[in-house]
């Protein structure tokens, strides 16, 4: 069976299409950044600190009644929402002064239990604001370090114009994925940071596979323009790009549907990221390299030192 007919000859990188792609990417990135600047992210307590309680009720939970009880008990800033099922309720409070946090949480628990129904305490988290900001810092650091190392690796294996293309594509993917969370105000927690980093890894995987073929074709198709060689390469890799994207999306959809509410933001981030990443490895990465006037001559240098390539497994 084949999804893609044997020889596609789609002109992905014609100047007109490239222009559209660049515009589209710019719109994505600008909208994402604008949303991040104005709406920000719905940070989970991993980052803000605070108190979180997940409780299971025997029957469908009456959110209004729970909110009423909490307000009466003085918890005016409590956020109450359903979590996955109509019997599961999530209650969040902003960070409390350190010494009273656990006390506040106990009171909160007591208030919920006083609601009459038997409740099952499923999860409790008390994170201080200080630890929250540390976790946020480490998340950001991980992102930057990963991008930097990847830039260096691609530079060693290929050439800096490819590196720039790859990192442009990755930054594009990361910004748009995080932007998606901002636009739709989805809960942004530590697992989403992990997902965004996995997206970076995945998208790069795609990009590098395309670059690999481009390098091969730069030498195989002598006398052909860089644009044509890249076009041929992308077409040749199209089946693989789509199939791998598809199988990965299949498992992620299974994870989103079956994995439960707490892993849902993670699944959404990966699904969005992989769709964007597939698009960007076709367009953003190659278009950026082309904009930097990449040419077969750029890759002649590594050939003079074949050990650079051949020594790698």
């Amino acid at each position, binding site marked *: 069976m084949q999804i893609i007919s044997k020889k596609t000859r789609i002109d992905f990188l014609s100047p007109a299409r490239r222009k559209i792609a660049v515009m589209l990417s710019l719109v994505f990135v600008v909208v994402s950044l604008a949303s991040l600047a104005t709406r920000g992210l719905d940070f989970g307590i991993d980052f803000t600190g605070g108190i979180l309680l997940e409780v299971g009720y025997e029957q469908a939970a009456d959110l209004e009644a729970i909110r009423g009880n909490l307000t009466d008990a003085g918890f005016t800033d409590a956020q109450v929402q359903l979590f996955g099922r109509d019997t599961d309720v999530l209650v969040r409070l902003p960070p409390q002064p350190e010494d009273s946090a656990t006390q506040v949480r106990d009171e909160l628990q007591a208030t919920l239990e006083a609601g009459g129904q038997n409740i099952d305490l499923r999860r409790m988290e008390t994170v201080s604001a200080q630890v929250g900001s540390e976790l946020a810092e480490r998340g950001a650091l991980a992102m930057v370090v990963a991008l930097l190392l990847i830039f260096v690796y691609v530079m060693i294996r290929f050439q800096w114009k490819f590196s720039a293309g790859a990192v442009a594509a990755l930054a594009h993917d990361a910004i748009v994925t995080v932007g998606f969370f901002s636009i739709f105000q989805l809960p942004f927690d530590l697992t989403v940071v992990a997902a965004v980093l996995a997206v970076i890894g995945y998208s790069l995987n795609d990009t590098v596979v395309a670059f690999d*073929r481009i390098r091969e074709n730069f030498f195989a198709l002598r006398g052909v323009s860089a644009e044509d060689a890249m076009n041929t390469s992308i077409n040749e890799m199209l089946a693989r790009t789509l199939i791998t994207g598809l*199988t990965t999306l299949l498992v992620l959809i299974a994870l989103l549907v*079956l994995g439960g509410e707490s892993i849902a933001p993670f699944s959404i981030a990966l699904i969005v990221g992989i769709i964007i990443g597939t698009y960007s490895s076709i367009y953003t990465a190659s278009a950026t390299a082309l904009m930097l006037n990449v040419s077969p001559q750029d890759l002649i240098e590594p050939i003079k030192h074949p050990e650079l390539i051949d020594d790698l497994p």
Partner: protein
Amino acid sequence: MNKFPLWLNVLVLAVLLAGCLFALPNIYGSVDAVQVADNDGLAYDELRLEEFVRTVENAGVTPEAAYLQDGRAVLRFHSTQEQEAAGERLRTAYDREANIAATLAPKLPKWARDLGLKPMSLGLDLRGGVYVLLEVDMETAIDSRMVGYQQGFDERLRDAKIRHRVDLDGQTINIRLTGAEDVESARVVIRRMDQDVLISDGADGKSLIVRMSEAQIQARQDFAIEQNITTLRNRVNELGVAEPLVQRQGADRIVIQLPGVQDPNKIKGILSATATVEFRLVDQSGGEPGSRRFQGRGTEGAQILKRSVIASGDQIIDASAGYAEGQPQVNITLDSAGGENMLRTTMENVGKPMSTVFIETRREAIPGRPGEFRKVVRQEIISTATIQGVFKDRFRITGLSPGEAADLALLLRAGALAAPVYIVDERTVGPTLGQDNIDRGFNAIKIGFLAVIIFMAIYYRAFGLIANVALLSNVVFIVAMLSILGASLTLPGIAGIVLTVGMAVDANVLIFERIREELAADSAPQSAINSGYEKALSSIVDANVTTLIAAVVLFSIGTGPIKGFAITLLLGIITSMFTAIIGTRTIVNLAFGGRKLQSLPV
């Protein structure tokens, strides 16, 4: 063409079998069990194990299996009722010498235990439990050392007959002398007591200023955190939790994981409690230098107590709660230095009163200044008694409620914290959510896996089936690696496995597409296979190395859920390289290699 030498086929098979063997323990599930561990960490032998089994059988419960693991005795039971009854019985018999904890034990057959096989452990989010991150108050660790110096300098200078006044100002000690002529001799006395403190001359020419050196501060902080870890470990052991984890994190934090604990409130007080006691003589004249007034607790009267401490909490080596004449009490055993001092003091002071002071440190928020705290040290006299006769290292203290007596005994037995600790992060997962997470996670793996397998079989036919075998062995290898490394599986870890399943086919997709390309370019089937594998290799390696970079960064910088995800992703990338490249090639070679083929089912 396309034939592997025999040894390579055998090697691949051997690796696969080894993977299956190490992954095997995970299919047995777990049962209720009781774990008995010696308080001093001594390993039990078969004789002791038999003794425990007999003890339990006397209570009418027969263990389903009983064995030793890492020197601890594990008794498995058929039901939770039996487990509880057995735990109760063992606790009555051995509570003083052993830590008896209810736990879940893997239901491994004997041969697997004998081989040292273990299933992977489940993270707190899957089995339920409490995670606590504590911050150690280093300021207090330094402060308490400074008080020690102050007392020490004071005594030494008095012994050397140098007139002086020692004041503690934060982390600086001011030693004021009567004249410039005493400065040098005082300096010698201080140096003799401590080689490393920083001594500088005061501005008035007749005083010395003493500080701790950077190295001393560092050493003190390291000591404080190590001491706290030991103490916390002791306290956690007293709580009867199986497989607790107490670990240093960074410069001033301690992570505690208590699997299976459901009520964090019960343990919280015990973990951060700084309660300790000290014993001082009552200053009956009320005018001795350094004497100070202490409040009494409840109905206990206030007293003026002498400066010197006869014995303090850190010299107590054993403590147990009990009753005498209907009153709760704590029976104390002192170490030899404390005992000597107590002996000397009681000999010299028969008929005079001595007080027991209860000390507790807490951190309070400063009203109106969020994020700032002040330390509140509560020192109260819980009892004052006349010294009736001479005693040494064994005596009792009274003046507490039954609950306080039990807690104080536990805290004294486990040792005092060298510095107060505060909870900065606390997460509890209930057992129902844990089970839910397991069910949901495995469901997602199953369905996702099935979807990919069906797709691959349809799309690549026989080669797709081969890739599916590789995919399945890849999951087996990840599970085997997690079991060998003793890493815990968490919910994000399961997500990592799911993602790996999706991505691991990539290598095979690359290879198979390449083979198709070669066939389309009119290569013979055998050479298409060969160059398909060969030419795809550099792409596969590049692609995996880059993902590996992301995974390694995640693992080294990430915390908590990120780490759990990173470890399975990392293992998955490595194992998938083996299964997708060498594994599938082995099967392809066995199935198609060395034959004349007209076409390939790819």
